[in-house]
């Protein structure tokens, strides 16, 4: 009698952990369970996505990178020079920011309202903010308590810039637009199974490169069934988990608190005033980007903007080899930022190959030749070496 009753008392002790483990395994499955939406052709879905107009939203974006890079968070803070106690709290700009984004995962909150935008990269015990309004842009880093202010001409506040995360955080919109613009003969576009992102039912668009020369296996974009807003983008490079994934984990459509866009740097902050390029420089930059803008690497462009440097105004322009997914960008030696080549990280990040060093990830490779040129693309290293030696 006592034997059975003492066993009975263990029932909750066994049942509750079992229930919790089951729940933890089942609930995520249900959350991503497909919702039943009306069928769409790829073209309908593309048009729907292209017509998306969500001027105001607040949301949280999770970005995970699984690019096959070593963990560089410790190095990142060395390069930034001023990482807080948190490993990813680096407030550095340029190369270290790019490395920071390329490794590990990040969470950012995004607030949009017309021409106003605010992005908060939520670091460990720190935060990096970008606040963009019609007439100015602020960059603030709590880790080293610095702020950069850029005064903008009043007429420049268009929706397009607002939707580009100036900090280099890739919002779903930025990535989706890049890939949608490439949906041409080089890509087979299909509609995948319906899904749920941030609690919203969504269509998925699957872009599969026809060109086998590229590293990218497919790109999956979730499109909100209600608004057409891209909710997540996943870049698959053939591994089990996506090489790069950006997704809303929480999303509210509607105007956020207007006070969020009213930024005054706190007392004790080192404020740097950054001058905007002159109109002539802007025009020159615009001409350049009209030629090859669509193929230009998003990360590089955004990184340059984040650093607030007008690096691209050099006389030498990058050239493009090939088309579509297997495009290789070639940067002449004179246009390569010196920081990139002198960085102490270079030896750690790159492997030596015949004719230079290679920075290799799951989705893209970068070749730095011994004579200082840079070749980059979503192609195997051999293709880059061939391009470098090809002429």
């Amino acid at each position, binding site marked *: 009698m006592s034997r059975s009753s*003492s066993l009975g*008392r*263990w*029932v*909750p*002790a*066994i*049942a*509750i*952990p079992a229930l*919790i483990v089951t729940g*933890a395994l089942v609930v995520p499955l249900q959350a991503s369970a497909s919702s039943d939406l009306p069928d769409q052709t790829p073209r309908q879905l593309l048009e729907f996505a292209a017509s998306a107009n969500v001027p105001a939203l607040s949301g*949280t974006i999770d970005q995970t990178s699984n690019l096959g890079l070593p*963990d560089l*968070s410790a190095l990142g803070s060395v390069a930034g020079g*001023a*990482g*807080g*106690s*948190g490993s990813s*709290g680096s407030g550095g700009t340029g190369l270290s920011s790019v490395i920071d984004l390329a490794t*590990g995962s990040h969470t950012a*909150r995004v607030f949009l309202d017309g021409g106003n935008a605010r992005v*908060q990269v*939520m670091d*460990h*015990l*720190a*935060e990096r*903010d970008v606040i963009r309004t019609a007439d100015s842009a*602020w960059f*603030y880093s*709590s*880790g*080293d*308590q610095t*702020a950069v202010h850029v005064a903008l001409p009043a007429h420049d506040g268009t929706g397009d810039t607002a939707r580009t995360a100036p900090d280099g955080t890739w919002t779903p919109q930025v990535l989706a637009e890049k890939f949608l613009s490439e949906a041409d003969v080089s890509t087979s576009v299909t509609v995948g199974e319906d899904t749920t992102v941030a609690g919203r039912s969504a269509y998925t668009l699957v872009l599969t490169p026809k060109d086998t020369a590229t590293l990218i296996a497919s790109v999956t974009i979730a499109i909100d069934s209600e608004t057409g807003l891209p909710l997540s983008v996943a870049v698959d490079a053939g591994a089990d988990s996506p090489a790069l994934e950006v997704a809303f*984990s*929480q999303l509210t459509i509607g105007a956020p*608190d207007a006070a*969020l866009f009213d*930024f*005054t*740097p*706190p*007392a*004790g*902050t080192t404020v740097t005033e950054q001058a905007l390029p002159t109109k002539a420089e802007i025009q020159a930059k615009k001409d350049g980007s009209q030629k090859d803008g669509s193929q230009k690497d998003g990360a590089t462009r955004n990184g340059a903007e984040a650093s607030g440097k007008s690096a691209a105004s050099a006389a030498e322009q990058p050239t493009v080899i090939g088309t579509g997914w297997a495009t290789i960008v070639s940067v002449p030696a004179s246009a390569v930022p010196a920081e990139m080549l002198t960085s102490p990280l270079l030896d750690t990040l790159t492997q030596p190959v015949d004719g230079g060093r290679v920075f290799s990830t799951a989705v893209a490779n970068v070749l730095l030749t011994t004579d200082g040129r840079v070749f980059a693309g979503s192609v195997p290293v051999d293709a880059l070496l061939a391009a470098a030696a090809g002429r």
Partner: protein
Amino acid sequence: MSAAPPRRLGLALLGTEICVLFQRKRTWAMLLALAAVPVLIAIAVRISSSPRPGRGPAFLDQVSQNGLFVAVTGLVVAIPLFLPLTVGVVAGDTIAGEASNGMLRYLLIAPAGRVRLLWVKYVAAAVFCVAATLTVVIAGLLIGLILFPVGDVTLLSGDTITVAEAIPRFLAIAAYVTVSLLGLSAIGLFFSTLTDVPVGAMAATIVLAVVSQILGALPQLDWLHPWLFSTYWLGFTDILRQPVSWESFGDNALLQGGYILVFGALAYGRFLTKDILS
């Protein structure tokens, strides 16, 4: 007399249990040690030149500008070791401590009831978590007021709020940290039902808190991190964003609730079937 005894939550017992907890010199010694953390930080900052941003514990560079940040810095320093240490002592002592001095049999004969005693002991340990966290926060705020100027509080997002707006946030931080320690308390309670040697239960609890944090620092164990009870321990800084990010508060509460249920159930199973031989 023959009627079944009324079902009570044991509030009277809980009352005396909390009194007993705070009648112990050991409890006060631990709270004093916790209060010393922000006080020592504040004094160190006061007598040294102001630290360079980015050096030392997070928020340390803010302290000299705003004394209120002593409380936050104190928590950042106390969370990895000092708070788990004191919570481990109290939670590990809950049942094993009574067993070791023989009181357990008299409490059960009294009759406290095994479920009620377990519940009361856990709540008392949770009360200590509140007291421990508030001790760090209040000691930090007080020493900050004394040694440094106090003014508008700069949030992580760069926005500035008034002291009046900041006080509820500090209380929310205290709540966050308290919730963070509840899972560890449940683990300590379970360990405490396994042994009649309180020091063993305390040590096991504290070691587990350290191990959990070490595992949490290993990037190779990414998949495990969301399951570690220490995962959100430093996430209280989300309260210092503008607007407040409650997401990690909710995730943390859910995680700690899971630990309370699992280890509470294990403690229940163990304690109800245990032969009290002490």
